[in-house]
């Protein structure tokens, strides 16, 4: 096994036993990137010198036996998380040359744990999309089938982990943007409870829905990364002051006292692919065979989640993205001598079509005469959706469902039909509206050989229970067939 193929936990053991150095591991990952990047297109920025410098520092820490489970581990960072001195573009032309003067809290945490940041990975522009095709920089390809999308918006993160171009990655999830690409690329992805991980330094899309989380090769690695990035942060007033358990402690025991809920409405969802339905049904049976008890539950407002989301998220986005006006950072149209003309021209030339569409939709929803009918109405439906989950979790510990209605779709398939692609968010969007955690774990393959994920959702702050359920499932089915064949 090549160093770049290792899980975080395997690499940690080798580093600890001095069988491998952090510099060797980082060089191995960089070589792998050079070998496959022209096919996968996962990275926007790679800083080899910075990565190798960090690796040398990590080797120093390891030599003094002063290491954490992430010391010397090469990771990729979604390009909307601020990294001091390392370009952060949000995959947008408007921020193409933006170099943050500070680190996001999660980056500070990763750095103090001794990790190696290899580079910044591609995404849909400002995280708006489900295919990474809305990137203003490049199109990322799914390592399992290069003609297909890796999903999105954290498509670069998922593709990089899947193609062994890093050992793990950070993504962000506003409506499924960690879980759906993890599902499409055959890896593990977790959207934590809203407020579990600090959003300080995460470029805001929809502030009441955004959450940073890990994308990893297996469930154990996900727990390892959660241990490092979770916790209250005074710099994020929405982060929750609640102690963080050691998530590795949940990876044991059995599922005998676990009650899993199967949402009735998710089984009859429009457009659910039969391969996905079969894979998820098999996964539920596997979890049942390990002693868990299955009950049917109802989330009656499921069919309204996409509509509520596509009012709330664009509304928040239209407000958050008002800051890009060509004054303090980002692209400015220098040909305009009038201030207002400069604002309008800089924004129109800097933002891509999907971002402009969402700004318009959000501005409309918040505008005089439409606020009550759209934004307020959607926020009330959001309350209903939260109540649905509350009632469901009185009957069960976790919910099991598909992540996405279909496996990865061909690049270009939905280019001109935004509503169709919005509707594919049906299984993931509700968790963001309700603020609950959701995890995607690989559960099988389509007849065409594309990976399919199982979604596990739980009440607020139940990440431990989600990881436990996913870990037992992963132990049962094994992870041996999780590598795509893209050659080297």
């Amino acid at each position, binding site marked *: 096994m090549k160093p770049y193929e290792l899980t975080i936990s395997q690499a940690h053991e080798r580093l600890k036993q001095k069988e491998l150095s952090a510099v060797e591991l980082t060089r191995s990952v960089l070589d792998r990137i050079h070998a496959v990047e022209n096919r996968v297109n996962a990275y926007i920025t790679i800083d080899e010198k910075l990565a190798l410098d960090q690796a040398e520092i990590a080797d120093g820490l390891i030599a003094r036996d002063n290491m954490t489970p992430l010391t010397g581990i090469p990771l990729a960072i979604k390009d909307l998380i601020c990294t001091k001195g390392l370009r952060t573009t949000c995959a947008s032309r408007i921020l193409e040359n933006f170099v943050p003067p500070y680190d996001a809290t999660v980056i500070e945490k990763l750095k103090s744990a001794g990790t190696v940041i290899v580079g910044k990975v591609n995404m849909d522009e400002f995280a708006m999309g489900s295919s990474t095709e809305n990137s203003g920089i490049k199109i990322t390809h799914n390592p399992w089938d290069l003609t297909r999308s890796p999903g999105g918006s954290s498509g670069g993160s998922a593709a990089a982990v899947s193609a062994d171009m890093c050992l793990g990655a950070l993504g962000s999830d506003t409506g499924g943007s960690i879980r759906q690409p993890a599902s499409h690329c055959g890896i593990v992805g977790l959207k934590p409870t809203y407020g579990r991980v600090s959003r300080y330094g995460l470029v805001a899309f929809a502030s009441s829905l955004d959450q940073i989380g890990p994308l990893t090769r297996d469930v154990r690695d996900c727990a390892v990364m959660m241990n490092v990035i979770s916790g209250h942060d005074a710099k994020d007033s929405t982060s929750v002051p609640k102690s963080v358990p050691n998530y590795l402690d949940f990876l044991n025991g059995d599922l005998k006292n676990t009650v899993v809920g199967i949402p009735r409405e998710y089984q009859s969802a429009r457009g659910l692919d039969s391969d996905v339905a079969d894979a998820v049904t098999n996964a539920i049976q596997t979890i049942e065979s390990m002693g868990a008890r299955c009950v049917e539950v109802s989330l009656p407002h499921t069919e309204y989640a996409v509509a509520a989301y596509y009012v709330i998220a664009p509304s928040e986005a239209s407000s958050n993205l008002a800051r890009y006006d060509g004054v303090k950072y980002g692209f400015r149209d220098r040909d305009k001598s009038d201030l207002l003309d400069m604002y309008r021209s800089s924004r129109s030339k800097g933002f891509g079509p999907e971002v402009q569409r969402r700004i318009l939709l959000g*501005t409309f929803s918040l505008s005089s005469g439409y606020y009550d009918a759209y934004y307020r109405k959607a926020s009330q439906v959001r309350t209903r959706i939260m109540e649905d989950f509350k009632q469901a979790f009185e009957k069960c510990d976790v919910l099991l469902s598909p992540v996405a209605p279909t496996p990865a779709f061909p690049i270009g398939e939905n280019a001109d039909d935004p509503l169709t692609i919005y509707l594919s968010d049906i299984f993931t969007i509700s968790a963001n509206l309700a603020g609950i955690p959701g995890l995607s774990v690989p559960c099988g393959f389509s007849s065409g050989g594309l990976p399919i994920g199982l979604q596990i959702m739980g009440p607020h702050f139940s990440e431990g229970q989600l990881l436990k359920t996913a870990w037992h499932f992963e132990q049962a089915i094994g992870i041996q067939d999780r590598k795509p064949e893209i050659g080297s």
Partner: protein
Amino acid sequence: MKITPEEVIHVANLARLDLDEAVVEKVSHQMGAILEYIDKLNEVDTSHVQPTTHAIFLTNAFRDDLVHEHLERNQALCNAPQRDETCFLVPRIIG
């Protein structure tokens, strides 16, 4: 609901975006289809339902008003498209 090209232009103006004429037509179709779908929300009875703006209940996070270290001016200005030693520069506002 349907949205007319004139309404799209009005909203674009509020959002400080310039749209080409050809784009206005396309955007009004796309937004119309999305808004028609969103009108589904009217099927839900929300009388007496409080709106949710944040899923996790938190009261305001207050802190003591103390002097801390902040970004140095030069760092804060480092990404500016146009600046001088101390300020962001914008096109002339007053004639």
